[in-house]
Every structure is written in structure tokens, then in C-alpha cells.
């Protein structure tokens, strides 16, 4: 089993394999509790009618709060609509500018390439708070505060960067020889891009669209500063309910936010292959 004559401080006595399997099972169980415990707790709160200190479980389960959240003119449905509308606009806007930029970064010789990369690094590499604080002040003066467009612009300036990175990684992972083959067979640059490059990069681009969608859907701080008082997205509604001590309403809202997040998590690797991930940040 072990190389003769080689000792290291890391060498531990090998565990017999049943014991090893037992340790692995314990560690996995603890990890499962750490990950699902908080989610389970949320589920309990979402269906709790009454839950008083110090009982371990709610004394009564029910759907009263669900009716309250989903009543036809309730805040939650309106916020859900606002959130989705903002996210869709953010995706369209971000991809429209990110796809050409990502392609240029991956394939064309650009002057000041380092400086351009640095600019696209900024929104992810710099704390966003100063930006939101000042943009809120400017938007207030020009009447964009509390408007959908204002929130979309803030979300897009952040999501766009992710989209540029992923798009550029997706284009970079397309095999150049395929493009060259199509060009040598007489395809124009545009035809080659449309029929070879774009379809091969499509999974990465779809992934970037989903990333931007989710990021916009979940965004809190920017909306907190720029959206007030008229744009209430789902995260803001949830936050207000939590701070108001209404744990049932906030748990139900949190569940609504969890559905797309977990759904995407389950399929992400179908879109984002290891070869694209390895190109991110290069």
C-alpha cells in the first residue's frame, strides 16, 4: 500500500475500511444537517400557524399565511411580478451588450486589453455599496429613483460583468480550428460566427443568461437604495417581513425565492461544463 522508506508528517495510520466507511458516513451526515437543517427550519416556519418559545416544533400547522401571501391583491404576488419583470429586462439588456463584448475579448486583438479587463473586473472585485449609495443620489435628482428602469440599470451594470466573463470563457473554449475550417471553405466571418461559433458557445451563453436572471431576482442592496419607495422586489418584501418579526410571511417569500435558485443549481453543470469553468478568470 505505501511507498517504502518515505515518511511525512501527514502520514496517518491507515484506517480499516469498515471504520473508514463509518467515518465517511458520519461526516456526510453532519454536512447534510448543516446544509438541510436551515432549509428544514424554513419549511417548518412556512407552515407554522403557531410556534411559541420554547417548544421544538410548531404547535399548529396550517395554510393561513399562504392564503394571506397569495391573496389576489396581496403584496407578494405584485412583488413577484415586479421581480420577474426586472430580471427579464436585465437579462435582455445585459446579453445584448455582453455577447459582442465577450466575443471581442475572447477572439479579437484589442488595444488596452488589460485595462478593459480591469474595468470588467471592477463590479465583481469592488464592494458595491459606494456605487449604490451615489447612484441613488444621482437617480434621485434625475427622477430615476423608485423606477423599474433605474433598478434594471443598476442590476445590469453588475450582471453584465458576469455575462461578459462567462460569454468570453464560452467563446474562448470554442475550438479555433473549427472556425478556420469554415472560413477556409469560404464562409464569411458573419456566417462562420452565426453557424459555428455561436451554436458551440450557446450552452455557456444560456448559463450566463440564467446567472444574470438569478442575480437580478435575488439582488437586495442595490434595490434597497435605488428602488425605494415604489419598487418592492421579492427580496425587499422578505426583508421587511423578517425585520417586522413576521417569520411565516418571510419564510413563505423565502421559499418562493428558493425555487429558481435550487432549480438552477440542479441543472447548472449541464450548461456550464468544466472546460468553460476552467476558463473563467483567465
Amino acid at each position, binding site marked *: 500500500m505505501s*511507498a517504502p522508506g518515505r515518511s*511525512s508528517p501527514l*502520514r*496517518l495510520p491507515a484506517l480499516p475500511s469498515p471504520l473508514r*466507511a463509518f467515518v*465517511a458516513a458520519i461526516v*456526510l451526515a453532519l454536512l*447534510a444537517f448543516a446544509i*438541510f*437543517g*436551515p*432549509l*428544514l*427550519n*424554513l419549511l417548518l416556519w412556512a407552515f407554522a400557524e403557531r410556534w411559541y418559545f420554547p417548544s*421544538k416544533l410548531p404547535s399548529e400547522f396550517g395554510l393561513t399565511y399562504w392564503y394571506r401571501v397569495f391573496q389576489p391583491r396581496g403584496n407578494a404576488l405584485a412583488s413577484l411580478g415586479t421581480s420577474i419583470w426586472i430580471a427579464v429586462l436585465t437579462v435582455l439588456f445585459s446579453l*445584448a451588450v455582453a455577447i459582442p*463584448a465577450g466575443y*471581442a*475579448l475572447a477572439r*479579437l*486583438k484589442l488595444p488596452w486589453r488589460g485595462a*478593459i479587463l480591469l*474595468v470588467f473586473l*471592477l463590479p*465583481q*472585485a*469592488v*464592494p458595491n*455599496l*459606494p*456605487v449604490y*449609495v*451615489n447612484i441613488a443620489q*444621482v437617480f434621485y435628482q434625475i427622477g430615476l429613483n423608485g423606477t423599474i428602469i433605474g433598478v434594471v*440599470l443598476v442590476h445590469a*451594470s453588475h450582471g*453584465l460583468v458576469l455575462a461578459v466573463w462567462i460569454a468570453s470563457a464560452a467563446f474562448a473554449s470554442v475550438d479555433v480550428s473549427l472556425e*478556420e475550417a469554415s*472560413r477556409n471553405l469560404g464562409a*464569411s*466571418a458573419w456566417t462562420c460566427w452565426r453557424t459555428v461559433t455561436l451554436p458551440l458557445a450557446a450552452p455557456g451563453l444560456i448559463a450566463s443568461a440564467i446567472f444574470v436572471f*438569478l442575480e437580478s*431576482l*435575488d439582488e437586495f442592496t442595490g434595490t434597497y*437604495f435605488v428602488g425605494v419607495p415604489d419598487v418592492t422586489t421579492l*427580496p425587499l418584501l*422578505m*426583508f421587511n417581513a*423578517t425585520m417586522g418579526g413576521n417569520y411565516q410571511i418571510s*419564510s413563505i417569500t*423565502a421559499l418562493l*425565492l428558493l425555487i429558481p*435558485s*435550487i432549480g438552477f*443549481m440542479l441543472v*447548472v453543470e449541464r450548461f456550464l461544463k468544466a472546460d468553460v*469553468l*476552467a476558463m*473563467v478568470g483567465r
Partner: protein
Amino acid sequence: MATVATRRPIADRAIGLVLIAPALAVVGLFFVAPLLMSAVVAFRGKEGGFTLEHFAKAFDFYTTDLLFTLWIVVLSTLLIGLVAIAIAGYLTLGGHPRSVAILRWLYRWPLFIPFVVAGQLMRTFLAKNGMLNHVLIGSGLIEPLSAQSLLDWRGIVVAFVWKQAPFVTLLLAGAMASLETQHIEAARNLGARRLRVLIDIVLPQVRGTLLVGLVLSFVTMLSVLSVPLMINPNSPTMMTVDVAYRISTHGDYPVANALCLLSLGLAAIGAVFYLRQAARSAEAT
């Protein structure tokens, strides 16, 4: 007939700039400009002119919070790195196919859960009457009387690691999966233990990816407002909460911007790490 080899470099550059211009304009207008504005506002006195009084005030009121923020973010980053290395390492080198499959399915759940939801989850899970304490008491690990609320700096760290570790793990496991397996197999055939293979052979090759993930997490955590606001809003707290408070309660933009610039300074430390790594990998290729 056009071939790729005969492209004219100048036309190529012009096309590149045209393609990239809209994206640059959006980031410039709605990100870089407000950022520069922050620097101006933080240094401008009431009657104009340069002043440091806002920074003096910021340090006067919030030095504790600055250190508190640094402590939380550094500790969280280290823990995220350890968790990510452990999980990604096991996914790459683990011997039990079934354990590897379970772990791969398990670790990713928090990946895209927003911070604001993670804050809400931990606010109920870690409370004195939360599920964590119930389970600890039920399993006899602690006495009911010694149950305590973790909703202070520890709660923020837990929420950050819970949310951010899967992201770094995903990047790291992706990088490890695309490594050449020959070295790993050779070392294994020579009898090297898995931990040694991980530390000596695998980790050095994915250092860049790990660092990128950690720097992104470091900076992200610096600007999260919702988690500290929900878990630990009272002093000492994180600087994001102070900024929101200066604005919503006092309308005090200069001091708020001074605080923002201070957290930018913290992020700059992370950026230096990143740039050094980027420069090194550029040399290598």
C-alpha cells in the same frame, strides 16, 4: 477568398472596440462614475475644498466596526477555502464512488441561494430557540440552560461560509476535473496517500482558480448588507450596516462615502492578491 490568416490587425482592433464599447459604456456610467463620485464626496468639505474630517469622524465612530468587519471577512474566507479544498479534493480523489456521488449532490444546494435568504435561514436556525440548539439538546451534547444564541459575529460567519463555500468548491472541483490525470495516477501507483496527492500535486495546479474564487468571495462579503442587518444589526457590526445607517438616519453622505472608501481599501488588499496571481499565470502561458 478570405482566410483567417490574412486579417488586417488595425481593422480587427477597430471592430473589437466597437463590439466592446456598449458594455464599457454601461459599466462606466453606472459603476465607475458613481465610484469616482464616492471618492470626491468623501474628501470634499462643506464649502468645497479638500478635507479629511469625514475620515476622522469615520475612524472616531467606527474603528471597532472596521476591525470587526475585517475579522469576519478574513475568517470566513479562510473557512471557505478549507471547506472548498476538502470537498473538491474528496470529489476528485475520493475512493468510495457512492460517497463521492452523494457529496457531489449534497454540497451544491446553497450555491444560488441569495444572501438575503441565507440571512433569514440563519436567523431562525441559529437563534436561542432555533433548530440547531434543539438538536444539540436533544442529542445530549449540551444542557438546555447552556443553549445560547449564535446571532452575533458567529452567525454572520456561518451564513457567509454556508452560502459562499459551494461557489468556490464548484470552481475548484471544475479546475481539478480538467487536470491531467497522469500525474495523479502515477503518484497513486507509487503509493502516495490521497491527502499527499491533494497537497503536493493537485492543489499547486489549481492555486489560481482557488485564489480567484476566494478573492471574489472576500469582496462579495465585504459589500453584503442584508446578512449583518438581519443577524447582527447592533454595534459592533459590519461597515455596510453603518453606511446604510448614516444615510437613512442622518442623510450623512460624506461620512457614508468615507466608510465606503475604507471598505474599498480592504478590498484592494484582495485585488492585489488577485493581480499578482493573474500576472503570474500570464507569465506561465
